[in-house]
């Protein structure tokens, strides 16, 4: 856990869809400048938890506390027939009109183009960009209002290793500037490589929160052999009946 002043915290969050329980009293928190990976099998409740943390979905029970939270959806939420600049300008204007920022929309766009390194592609339609560059624009929109917490839902899905490395270089620059980042992923190696802390969920329950080393230790303590983190995690899940 992060300590006394988390940038974003959730306590006992539960959520059901049509009688099916998606989250069962999950706790979660991320501190300023911290990177937390949310891992778990498909249908574990990762996206639901991120949606609740972002304020897009309401929990059935539990509490969420945190300000300045930006959410970046798994698939690029962009208008493919608009250019990079037009997409950024649209969301800058909407955020400005919604009172999320006082910054001039045009200046905000320029700042984001510089930040993402896409100034040269500003006039290109988003649909013509690579998946990695689309994701950078996608994240840039989330960062426009200068959030203190950035929630990324499986940010590297569909990216090749080089694109993934560029994306994380971009995100880690934000972290160095104090932005807290929580991301969901299926890729255990990605979680180990970029996250300071890992939170594991399975079948709607929070089953682990700690570092990668702590996860390995938990596996070995149960008598299983710990090879790589993915193997350890699978053993951890089996041990708990998931």
């Amino acid at each position, binding site marked *: 856990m992060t300590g006394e002043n988390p940038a974003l915290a959730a306590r006992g969050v539960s959520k059901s869809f049509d009688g099916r329980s998606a989250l069962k009293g999950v706790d979660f928190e991320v501190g300023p400048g911290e990177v937390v990976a949310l891992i778990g099998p498909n249908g574990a409740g990762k996206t639901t938890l991120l949606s609740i943390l*972002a*304020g*897009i979905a309401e929990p059935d029970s539990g509490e969420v506390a945190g300000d300045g939270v930006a*959410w970046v*959806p798994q*698939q*690029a*939420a*962009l*208008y*493919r*027939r*608009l250019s990079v600049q*037009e997409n950024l300008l*649209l*969301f800058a*204007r*909407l*955020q400005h*009109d*919604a009172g*999320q920022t006082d910054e001039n929309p045009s200046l905000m766009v320029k700042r984001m183009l510089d930040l993402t390194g896409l100034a040269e592609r500003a006039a290109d*339609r988003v649909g013509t960009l690579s998946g990695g560059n689309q994701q950078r624009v996608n994240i840039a*929109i989330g960062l426009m209002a200068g959030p203190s917490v950035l929630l990324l839902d499986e940010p590297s899905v569909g990216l090749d290793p080089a694109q993934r490395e560029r994306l994380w270089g971009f995100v880690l620059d934000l972290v160095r500037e104090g932005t807290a980042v929580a991301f969901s992923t299926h890729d255990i190696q990605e979680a180990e490589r970029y996250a300071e802390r890992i939170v594991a969920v399975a079948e709607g329950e929070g089953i682990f929160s700690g570092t990668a080393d702590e996860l390995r230790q938990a596996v070995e303590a149960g008598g299983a052999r710990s090879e790589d983190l993915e193997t350890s995690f699978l053993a951890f899940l089996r041990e708990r009946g998931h």
Partner: protein
Amino acid sequence: MRWLVLKDLQILKRSPLQLTLLVVYPVVIALLVGFAMTGGQEQTKVALYSQIPASESLGLGGEEVDGSEIRNQLCGRVECIEADSASDAKKMVESGEATAAVIVPEDLGDKIRSLASLNPESPEIQIIVNGSDAVESQVTDDRVEAMLSEANLLLAKRLSEGAKDYLDLILKGGQFDLLGQKIEVLGLKKSEQILRQIEPKLPPGTDKEQLARAVRFAHLATDNLDLAGPLLTAITEPIKADKVEVGDEAPSLDTYAIGVTVAFALMFVTVLLVAGSLALEKEENAFTRLTAGLVGRGWIIFAKVGLGTIVGTGVALILLAGLGLFIGIEWGRAPFWLLAIVFGAAAFAAAGAALGAAAREVRAATLAAVMISVPVALLSLVPDDAVGPAIETAINLVSAVFPFRPALDAITGGLELSGPSQWLPLLHLTVLTLAYGALARLALRRF
């Protein structure tokens, strides 16, 4: 809201096909309808096969109607194509060379002449029409019917005039040509005069009573046959129609045609555009981001209805400008029809938003928009007296919940002073806009 509309206009600009359609569609429709309305002078082609020799005279008591005169009457309203036989005429209709065929039988002349005899027969001609096209068939039926009515009228006049001559002969006397021999007919009036002159000169003992009876009969016959003449003249026009027309008939039809054209274009463009545009928000994954604290769902609906209203109105104006090249549009009434177009566009846009929100996928939304709007619009055009009461009620109910009919009424009312009142349709469109907007908002809850 304005940024969303601006964004949608930018997207629209990026789709050359969509943009081209938005401009080309009203232009093409304007050209088609314009040419159809102004180029309607081409006559219906009718194949004619007459077995009566052109020179054969249909003498009716001294009045002559020959075969060529009947042909001229038949072909006055249509373009006649001479056929060599009845089967040739039939083939012309089947092939589409002629829209109808008229077969005049050889015995038509005899039967017409028999009308003036004591044993009248019913003259008949055969009409062949192509029933494969319901609309064209109906138009052809109307034209052939009008054509026959004129021919019948001519015959009736000649028959009555011939019969009247016979009556005059019996009444006033004169010469009658029978098998080449001139026969002198005394006539009832002269008979009466002669009888009256000789009555006082008759010697006593003569049966004066019998003679007096003959004189009374001749007098009564004269009086009654005097009335028969006007009666026969009356049958030349058996049914009289007192038709009163005010104003110019043609512009009303033009106005209705313009109204239907504009309402259809407005419906197509607006419903499809808005349904597709709203569904696109889902397909682009942007909806969740937009509603994550940036824009309320209600404002998204409002923006889409605004987009549809702006684009739909623009398309309708292009269409009207195009139609204005062919037919007269009252530009002085622009505020009225512009109001109708704006209200109609808003109602269609709200309906499109409801469809798009319900479909959640562009192709499904587009398909639903076409499949729902076109049949409902066509139903709205069915005349009330063309169907039974139950179907009429059903059609009226369906028409009332879709904006096409009120939009059509409002537009035609706006185009012409003598058109239907605008205010009720405008109120109707307002209610539909709000209702469909509410439905769209409801559907966005599970978008």
